[in-house]
């Protein structure tokens, strides 16, 4: 049986607090901040991750001694490993090439006839030796099965 003490008179509607709207806005603000942080690490500085040997030779005066990432193919039979790193020639198209002296241990896949990206700089506007502080191997999307009888090219490589 229903109680006679129930108060059924109309009450004022409670204030609607748009919590979900503010929470949504908060999420979007955090999201935009996170994306800006990620973009600031790379894309906002330079969309291209590296400059090629050809480009660097062309823009040498403009580059000066700024730290850049130089990309090229390691010239066969040019690698000299030292106690502190390695030196080698990086080739571009045609006869374009730059001598690199890099400190630190090169990556495991570093070898002749492979594209690499070297982080470093030239010392002064006149110097043409590229002083590297880090070598990264730029692997292609080509996958060749290892085979002991694979024919080698005249320059001693298998590609």
């Amino acid at each position, binding site marked *: 049986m229903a109680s006679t003490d129930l108060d059924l008179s109309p009450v004022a509607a409670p204030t609607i607090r748009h919590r979900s709207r503010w929470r949504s806005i908060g*999420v979007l603000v955090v999201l935009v901040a996170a994306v800006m942080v990620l973009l600031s690490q790379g894309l906002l500085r330079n969309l291209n*991750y590296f400059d090629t040997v050809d480009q660097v030779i062309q823009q040498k005066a403009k580059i000066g001694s700024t730290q850049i990432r130089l990309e090229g193919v390691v010239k066969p039979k040019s690698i000299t490993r030292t106690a502190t790193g390695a030196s080698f020639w990086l080739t571009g198209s045609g006869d374009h090439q730059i001598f690199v002296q890099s400190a630190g241990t090169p990556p495991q896949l570093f070898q002749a006839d492979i594209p690499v990206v070297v982080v470093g700089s030239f010392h002064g506007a006149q110097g043409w030796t590229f002083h590297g502080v880090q070598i990264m191997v730029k692997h292609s999307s080509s996958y060749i099965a290892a085979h002991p009888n694979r024919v080698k090219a005249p320059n001693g490589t298998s590609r």
Partner: protein
Amino acid sequence: MKKLAPRLLGSFTLLSLALVVWLGLFVTPKDQVQGDLVRLLYIHPAIAWVALYVSFGTAVIASGLYLWPRSRSMTMDRVAHCAMEISVIFIALTLITGSIWGRPTWGVWWAWDARLTTTAIMGVFEVGYLALRRANDDPVQRARRSGVYAIVAAANLPLVHFSVNWWRTLHQGATVLVQNGNLLVHGLMLFDTLYSFVAFTALFFWLLRARYRLELARESGASAALENRLAERRAEGGQK
């Protein structure tokens, strides 16, 4: 038939993944340059495929179908939500497997080139989608806001895909989805690579089905709990 199809999907997924792993670890040859590092080729591209195209694509399409009045239903919203959750896991796996391969190959765990950066941004967008859903209590409002968000976030996908073509990146070009169709993977390595795409796609659909059923159970459980509380309140009112 209704119960047979999921069991077939599960068995197919399990056998396919087992085949990919067996071929990848024990049968396919080493790579001329990478040696055994090539074996990550049989999972990383396929995981990325699921993360960016299959899973995220499903979430975007389902979101679009929800927003379109003629096809609007909470089913579409649930599918979008479940698919996006799976995409978050797969995109994390993409970045992890990529780093594991990158450290010995490139020489670094990570590089802020266009491909890796846009992929990381996509991951942030996907986590943002899930956070946005948690911020909204009303189911209809939640479905609408997250649906619009997913469609807008999809604008990043072409940037991720074409980043290796538009800009100079450390990350190599596409392994399978090459523009000129000239794949540079051969023999058994190619078969295992391509089949891994089939296996992981099947895995996605298996996970989607399982997650969707879980979501339905959660919603009906929440409804049942609410009904129970209402019944208790009515009973209290009757006792007074």
